[in-house]
């Protein structure tokens, strides 16, 4: 009965490994952009390879799991009181997800042509 929750926490902790793995990819990308166009194209081909696509999809799922669990747990650590009543968790997590959506929009706006 207790196993599923332990398992969820374990997955939550494992998301960290994917965050680190992606940071390494991201830094490699920055390095290759700093080099000449040919070496960058080679790196781009590597990024587009099926193996990296699988890695990307798995990393995306794990990091999204991190996003959802982290943002929804924020209210538990914050006791906000208004008129003698604790502000409900959804009032704190809700705007968290709105900010999440806004950040995604801003990043895409900057990145996409």
């Amino acid at each position, binding site marked *: 009965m207790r196993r599923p929750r332990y398992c969820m*926490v*374990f997955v*939550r*902790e*494992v*998301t*960290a*490994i994917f*965050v*680190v793995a*992606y*940071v390494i*990819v*991201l*830094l490699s*990308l*920055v*390095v290759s*952009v*700093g080099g000449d*166009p040919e070496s*960058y*194209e080679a790196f*781009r081909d590597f*990024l*587009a*390879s*099926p193996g*990296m*696509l699988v*890695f*990307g*999809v798995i*990393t*995306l799922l794990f*990091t*999204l799991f*991190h*996003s959802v669990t*982290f*943002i929804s747990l*924020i209210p538990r*650590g914050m006791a906000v009181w208004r008129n003698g009543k604790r502000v409900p968790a959804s009032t704190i997590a809700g705007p968290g997800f709105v*900010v*999440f959506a806004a*950040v*995604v929009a801003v*990043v*895409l706006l*900057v*990145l*996409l*042509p």
Partner: protein
Amino acid sequence: MNIKGSHEAFWWSLFSVGGVVSAMVVPVLVFATIVGPGLGWDVFADAMRYDRLSRLLGNQLVKMGLFVVIALSLFHAFHRIRHLITDLHVPVPGMPVAALSYLLAIVGTVVAAIVLWLM
């Protein structure tokens, strides 16, 4: 006030701020740089063109933003990895695991700074 023993509060504050930042930013970056182009979506492939990226990375604001995201994500992630190692009952003492974890986060941060500004 005498806070016994440790600077855990400091590392935890980096963990939680990093947790928020990585939650907000990392998935969209993963999608835009790997999954989108990998699936052959033209917008993303176009966004990853050499001239566009090198112009983007020439912008100090973008560099600063990337640096903050990378550094905080690393401190977040290595704090979790530290606890993951404990939770897996790996038979090593806690102190070295914590020290090594945060050391790796610091090294990663320094590498990020070098990559962004010196290369």
